């Protein structure tokens, strides 16, 4: 029964998605959502333990909202950068795969970090091995692993470290 606790954050998220989907919310819809969420809570399925890393606190919620805005800004900035590279006649790219190190411990935090890196144009997470991420970078401008870590990872890490630990 201890495992049931791990699934609570997941069920809350599923219920939140349901609520967004059926807005404006009425009593029958609310009842259906609650019933479905409880079924989700009882049926066991593999992989749900990952969500046990989540712990609620107001500081984390505040950091999560700040992270969303930081992330959107990073996406817009790097989109413009890649757009410039695509349009410029010399095609100024220097691609390769770099290895960077992350401080994040929880697997969910690493998942969100890898997905954020992949979503920002110019970088794709190719592989992940414990605390090292292998990232395809469209324009390598440093030979140093620490500098590459600072440029790609640390901006996101600052927020994710507080949210996921």
């Amino acid at each position, binding site marked *: 029964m201890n495992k049931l606790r791990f699934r609570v954050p997941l069920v809350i998220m599923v219920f939140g*998605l349901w609520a*967004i*989907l059926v*807005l404006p919310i009425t009593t029958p819809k609310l009842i259906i959502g609650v019933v479905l969420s409880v079924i989700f809570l009882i049926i066991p399925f593999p992989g749900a333990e990952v969500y046990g890393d989540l712990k609620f606190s107001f500081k984390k919620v505040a950091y999560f909202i700040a992270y969303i805005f930081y992330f959107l800004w990073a*996406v*817009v900035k790097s*989109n413009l950068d*890649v*757009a410039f590279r*695509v*349009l410029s006649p010399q*095609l100024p*790219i*220097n*691609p*390769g*795969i*770099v*290895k960077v190190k992350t401080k994040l411990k929880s697997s969910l935090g690493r998942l969100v970090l*890898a*997905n*954020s890196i*992949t*979503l*920002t*144009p*110019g970088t*794709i*997470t*190719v*592989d992940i091995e414990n605390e090292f991420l*292998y990232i*395809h970078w*469209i324009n*390598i*401008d*440093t*030979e140093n692993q620490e500098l590459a870590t600072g440029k790609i990872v640390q901006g996101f890490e600052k927020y994710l470290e507080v949210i996921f630990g």
Partner: protein
Amino acid sequence: MIDIIASVVILVGALFLLLASIGLLRMPDLYNRMQAGTKATTLGSILIFLGFIILNGDNWSKYLLLIIFIFFTNPLSSHALARAAHFMGINPILDRESEISPRDDLKTEKDTEAES
């Protein structure tokens, strides 16, 4: 007025999608095509959905859900493609002059492991 703002937002989104397709044609190898092709579409489609939200405010929650869906699925698919390509043995390094030597950390590590 709202129509004009929404049209501009949708137009900018379409512009990003156009840039993605130009990138697909211009980039030299698979990984860089993915950089241009899969990512510019993120911002492009999000801007288009944002335009829809401005135009049709009643259904904002559905469009928001679509944006969240794109945010979750897009990185997974591009990561899977890149990983599969790398294990197929496609070389990410280009033959071209540059000050900083391009490198492939993943490949060199796997090779040294295989040799030892």
